[in-house]
């Protein structure tokens, strides 16, 4: 409740004199005039007479410093009986090199007017070796478990951050060095320690460090950056000494960077003397274990040999062991399984290798031991690990080959092998054909094959006949009128000659029939004028048509008027006229 009342009063004080500013002034200040590159310097730009600026201050002389903003705060002060407001901009400078630097001026803009601050001289000196008694509230140490190691022997590199104040946002920058590798060993751990009579909170993180090549290495300092908050220690208790204001919300963090000391490390080569054949470069401390299950099987069944190589060191160099071949035994290697981890003493791992062993014949077998060599840095010599041999008793199988479940292809092969080939027991021909069907017609294509040709050609002959018949019929229809005309003329001429032209009535009928046959008419009687008209319409010349008209007129006269003398001569004229007509019509 007390906190709440004070906060309300403070807020009212801030909001009340919103327009109570005049005579704007700007000042720049540092929390120290001399510092080292590992320090961070607090810089404050104070603007009095205004609660805010148009733009953030622009500060000169910071080219060689890292700049971190620390926020801004407004303030209200009562001076000479008048209320003045102001705003403070806080920054933290991180120097990058020694030297003297002029910081400032800071330039601010308030309501369009430019105001400048003072300048401050800052001297950055080289950091002096820190004495153990001079340790501050925050410091970082680095250490090695040993200063001399063999190639690829792992050494523990430990970083410890000692804290007497609250920090946040810690970041670590490990030293970089060729041919040296760092691998973190688990999460950082925290504990308390007392140094020079002060109690520190210690944050410790370990790394497995390996030298890949022999040589003398100087491991540079590791650096940690963080935001440190003030310890809040006051010489006397004041108004703001209330625990409420010790909350980080009311504190201002400042960036910090601490470094560890450099360390020397010597990496020596592995001794050439005593190096086993097939040495894989494994360095550390290792063990081997093996197991054969089951120790007794049937022929064709499988037993599993499991070999485990485990230990601490450069475990990724644990080799894949080879299983020597055995007579009458099929061996199928499984894919090795590698697991790696770490403990407090460094990197550790295990490689598990399995083999499926399938004896084909019964008997007692001896599975040979497997070996792996490594260099023991503690003893300074090479060692060879050897797994124990395993006896395998194989009793007769059940006749079927059961393949191990190692590779699907081999299983398929086994299934194929289980199929039995058809074995011929007897060999003979198949029996006689007793059916009389299909016995006849030998050599039907020989001797000219008349049937063949007849069958093939008869349909074609039928087609040709039909085609020609149709053509003939069609042509006959087209020539029918001409034939009829020729026949009609021929009949008339023959009849005229036979009758001699003495019978006018017969001549009249013959001419009428000629016209009916010749032109396809059905005339019951034919007058001379009609005959002339028909001939003219068929294209006969008028003279010829006139001659026939005259002849017919003469015949009519002979018939109806009894003038029969002219009919005989007329009958003799008709064939000539008809021939002329036929010629002209054609």
């Amino acid at each position, binding site marked *: 409740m007390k906190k709440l009342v004070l906060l309300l009063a403070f807020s009212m004080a801030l909001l009340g004199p919103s327009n109570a500013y005049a005579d704007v002034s700007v000042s720049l200040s540092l929390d120290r005039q001399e510092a080292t590159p590992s320090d961070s310097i607090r810089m404050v730009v104070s603007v009095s007479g205004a609660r805010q600026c148009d733009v953030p201050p622009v500060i000169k002389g910071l080219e060689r410093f890292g700049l971190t903003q620390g926020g801004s705060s407004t303030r209200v002060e009562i001076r000479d009986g008048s209320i003045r407001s102001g705003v403070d901009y806080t920054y933290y400078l991180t120097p990058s090199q020694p030297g003297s630097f002029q910081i400032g001026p800071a330039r601010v803009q308030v309501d369009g007017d430019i105001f400048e601050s003072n300048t401050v001289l800052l001297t950055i000196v080289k950091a002096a070796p820190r004495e153990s008694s001079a340790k501050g509230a925050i410091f970082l140490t680095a250490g090695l478990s040993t200063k001399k190691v063999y190639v690829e022997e792992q050494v523990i590199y430990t970083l410890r951050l000692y804290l007497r104040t609250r920090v946040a946002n810690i970041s670590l920058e490990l030293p970089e060095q060729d041919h040296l590798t760092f691998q973190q060993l688990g999460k950082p751990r925290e504990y308390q320690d007392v140094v020079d009579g002060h109690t520190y909170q210690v944050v410790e993180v370990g790394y497995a460090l390996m030298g890949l090549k022999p040589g003398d290495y100087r491991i540079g300092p590791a650096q940690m950056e963080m935001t440190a908050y003030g310890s809040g220690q006051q010489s006397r208790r004041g108004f703001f000494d209330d625990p409420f204001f010790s909350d980080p919300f009311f504190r201002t963090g400042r960036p910090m960077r601490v470094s560890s000391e450099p360390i020397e490390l010597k990496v020596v080569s592995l001794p050439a003397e005593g190096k086993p054949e097939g040495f894989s470069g494994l360095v550390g401390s290792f063990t081997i274990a093996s197991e054969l299950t089951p120790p007794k099987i049937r022929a064709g069944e499988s037993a599993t040999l499991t070999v485990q190589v485990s230990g601490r060191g450069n475990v990724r160099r644990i080799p894949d062991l080879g299983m020597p071949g055995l007579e009458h035994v099929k061996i199928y290697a499984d894919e090795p399984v590698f697991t790696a981890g770490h403990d407090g003493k460094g990197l550790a791992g295990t490689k598990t290798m399995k083999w499926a062993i399938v004896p084909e014949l019964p008997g007692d077998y001896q599975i040979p031991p497997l070996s792996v060599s490594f260099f023991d840095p503690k003893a300074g010599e090479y060692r060879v690990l050897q797994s124990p041999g395993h006896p395998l008793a194989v009793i007769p199988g059940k006749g079927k080959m059961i393949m191990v479940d190692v590779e699907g292809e081999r299983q398929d092969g086994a299934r194929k092998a289980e199929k039995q080939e058809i074995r011929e027991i007897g060999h003979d021909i*198949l*029996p*006689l054909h*007793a059916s009389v069907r299909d016995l006849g*017609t030998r050599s*039907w*294509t020989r001797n000219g094959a008349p049937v063949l040709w007849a069958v093939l050609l008869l349909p*074609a002959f039928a087609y040709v006949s*039909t085609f020609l018949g149709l053509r003939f019929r069609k042509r006959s229809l087209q020539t029918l009128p001409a034939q009829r005309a020729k026949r009609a003329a021929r009949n008339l001429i023959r009849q005229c000659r036979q009758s001699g032209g003495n019978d006018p009535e017969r001549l009249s009928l013959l001419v009428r029939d000629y016209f009916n046959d010749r032109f396809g008419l059905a005339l019951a009687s034919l007058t001379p004028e009609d005959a002339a008209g028909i001939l003219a319409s068929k294209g006969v010349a008028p003279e010829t048509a006139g001659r026939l008209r005259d002849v017919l007129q003469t015949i009519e006269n002979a018939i109806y008027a009894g003038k029969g003398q002219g009919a005989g001569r007329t009958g003799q004229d008709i064939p000539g006229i008809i021939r002329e007509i036929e010629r002209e019509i054609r």
Partner: protein
Amino acid sequence: MRKMIRLAIALLAAGLSFMSDACADSGWEESFFKANQAYREGHFEEAIDGYLHLIRSGKGGGPVYYNLGNAYLKADRLGRAVWAYERALLLTPRDPDLRFNLSHARDQTVDAMGDPRGSIETVFFWLRSFSLRELFGGFAVLNLLFWSVLIIRLFNRSEWLYYIFLFVISLWFVTGLSFGLKYYRVTTDDRAVVLQKEADILAGPDATDTVLFKLHEGTVVHHERSEDGWSLIRVSDKNRGWVTSEAIGRISDDASDPN
């Protein structure tokens, strides 16, 4: 009128000839059964004579040649058995028993034989599955159909008839081509089978000529020509030579026993 009389006489003669043949054929079934019975009783030579009699009398169908091949094989005359089976294969190419027995006979031959399939059979693979008679029957039917459709089209030129014509002419062409090729293969079949247990292949048509190589019964060779009781045969491009004509039997000779 005279023409009509001549035609009637010709038809009568043909009918009488057909009836005469039918009467003459009345005993061939009995001969066939007798030969089969002789085979079953183990009288293989008697069975062979019976089957050959049938063949000579015009009843040389596929089953007769098949049975003859069986009888030859039982009588331990491998070359003639192969010859008879090959003859039967021309007439009944899809007979599975025949193929089995022919394969059995080929297994017993001494000389290695390549695939006698020619390029025509490779391209027109179905030719081996049909006999010449079957191909002719199919072509005859399609030929009749083809000309019938053409005749119908003289009177009716509808569209559906046009498509039928296209379909029929396609089949007509394929079967006609197949029949023609088969006919060519059959009439130009130069294969022959070695009938003797062992035949000397000489460099020339004389017994004193150099023996080039030997062939054994059942081996299928190609016959090129014959001169004075000698035949020029070819096994491959490298192996050619002369052999006595009685030592081989041509597969295309269907009239009687090869020897």
